[in-house]
């Protein structure tokens, strides 16, 4: 079931059913393509996520309600086959109790070691990229680890923080505010702006790729170029 709602005066948001699936990713890519063709000259940005597409129009658009009605009528709701080669990559993590590892363990009734074990026990798919440059939303987390976001976001999350929220996990590519539960730190750079305009990729993965975490020691973290934040010095 697809719905198209107002997001703001210059934006619409298209929703698929609120569940996480690889099928949704393909359907969203197909719909994004269609929307680009239908409203090309009025489009400012299109932001896909797990089960939604934010469609932002230039402020001089022809009227948000007219655009909503037009897209509702014109969007073909079937899904054509879009296939993409997906790659698998491994991200090292220096797990640490300095942040929310203890709280997550307590919430789930597990030990910290069991939380770490479960977090690195499966492959995650890259469902969306956003929030900040190179921030990839990975899913799905083992349901036993599902933890709500912090009641009030932290003003400063350190660079490389590996964190979880509900059944998602992610790595913060740079220091930023954030409301996810931090389990540890990843030394791998996730957004290399210096690669812009070169053949080298900006990010080590794309939407649809598979990611696995692997526990490393403090020494390995430092050897891989990781920087210790204030809390661990």
């Amino acid at each position, binding site marked *: 079931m697809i719905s198209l709602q107002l997001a703001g005066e210059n934006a619409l948001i298209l929703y698929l059913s609120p569940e996480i699936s690889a099928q949704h990713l393909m359907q969203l890519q197909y719909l994004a393509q269609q929307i680009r063709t239908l409203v090309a000259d009025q489009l400012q940005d299109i932001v896909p996520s*797990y089960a939604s597409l934010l469609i932002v129009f230039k402020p001089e658009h022809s009227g948000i309600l007219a655009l909503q009605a037009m897209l509702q009528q014109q969007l073909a709701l079937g899904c054509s086959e879009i296939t993409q080669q997906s790659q698998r990559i491994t991200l090292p993590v220096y797990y640490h109790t300095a942040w929310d590892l203890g709280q997550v363990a307590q919430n789930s009734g597990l030990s910290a070691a069991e939380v770490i074990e479960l977090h690195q026990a499966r492959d995650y798919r890259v469902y969306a990229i956003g929030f900040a*440059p190179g921030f990839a939303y990975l899913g799905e987390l083992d349901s036993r680890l599902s933890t709500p976001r912090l009641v009030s976001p932290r003003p400063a999350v350190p660079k490389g923080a590996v964190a979880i929220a*509900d059944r998602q996990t992610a790595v913060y590519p740079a220091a930023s505010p954030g409301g996810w539960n931090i389990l540890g730190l990843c030394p791998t750079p996730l957004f290399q702006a210096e690669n812009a305009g070169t053949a080298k990729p900006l990010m080590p993965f794309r939407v649809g790729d598979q990611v696995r975490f692997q526990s490393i020691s403090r020494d390995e973290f430092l050897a891989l170029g990781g920087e210790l934040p204030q809390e661990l010095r």
Partner: protein
Amino acid sequence: MSAFVVLKPGVVSTLQDQGRFGYAHLGLTQGGPADHRSYRIADLLLQNPSPSCQVEVSVGGLSVVALADTVFCVTGAQMPLTVNGQPKSLWQTHRVKKDDVIALGFAQAGVHSYLAVAGGFRLPKYFGSNSTVLREKVGGIAGGALQQGQFLPVRPAYRSLLFTLPESYWPGFSTPLELGLVPGYQQQWFDTIQWQQLYSTDYKVSALSDRMGYRLEGEPLCCQPRALLSEGICYGAVQLPPEGLPIVLLNDRQTLGGYPKPGAVLATDAAALAQCRQGHSIRFYPVSPHQLHVHQMQLNRYWAELPLMFRSTS
């Protein structure tokens, strides 16, 4: 070639053009002028044919020296403006000669001013834009705020006539600021009582407010915690974390987020909010689909007619 050199960078001064678009899917935020209305008026006064790269002076304290004759103006917050120590009017274009010093004091009302020049500043773009986002370290000069001694080249331009915007058209800094909310996103998650509370609460701007978003303080709005898949956030979106205090997301917002949102405030109101300081009173009011349609028509007319109100001063 015309250019300026930064003598004093002020509290925080950043280069901004219209914003960075087309890269939100990689997580790059829009950036751009926090008060896009004052920014746009500056370009119109200078007869710049397209949105230019300007300096957003936040709080105040910037001074620059001109290396060649040019035309400039300052719009936005009420910041005392001088050229070689002589007071000059905001919302008006002025000529400067080589070695003239343009200085801005500290804002008496509002937060952000726009120092714009005929032709605009010419600097390398980053992902299609000059807009500086300090958190992401992108745009501007090496992703940072302006620093003493930096050289700001200016794109060549025809020497324009001088214009002024009559005072009756200057944006005010009214209290309380009323924000028109366009219901959207998870609007159906909120019941009648919650909507009533949202529209009747007197909020105050929190100290934790910046170009990323404005946090509001007031009576918390209780909402059932519900899991939400992270989704795209538009300019002006209002998010409600479990603590029940709204955050209005602005230019440097995160591109995706997972807190519930009752909708988004009108862009002109979001720009006015960005000019508010800690403690400023804020109220929300609802914008129906019909009112939204009328608002968009009025806005188009406002921008079409505004240049007709300019008075020539040369």
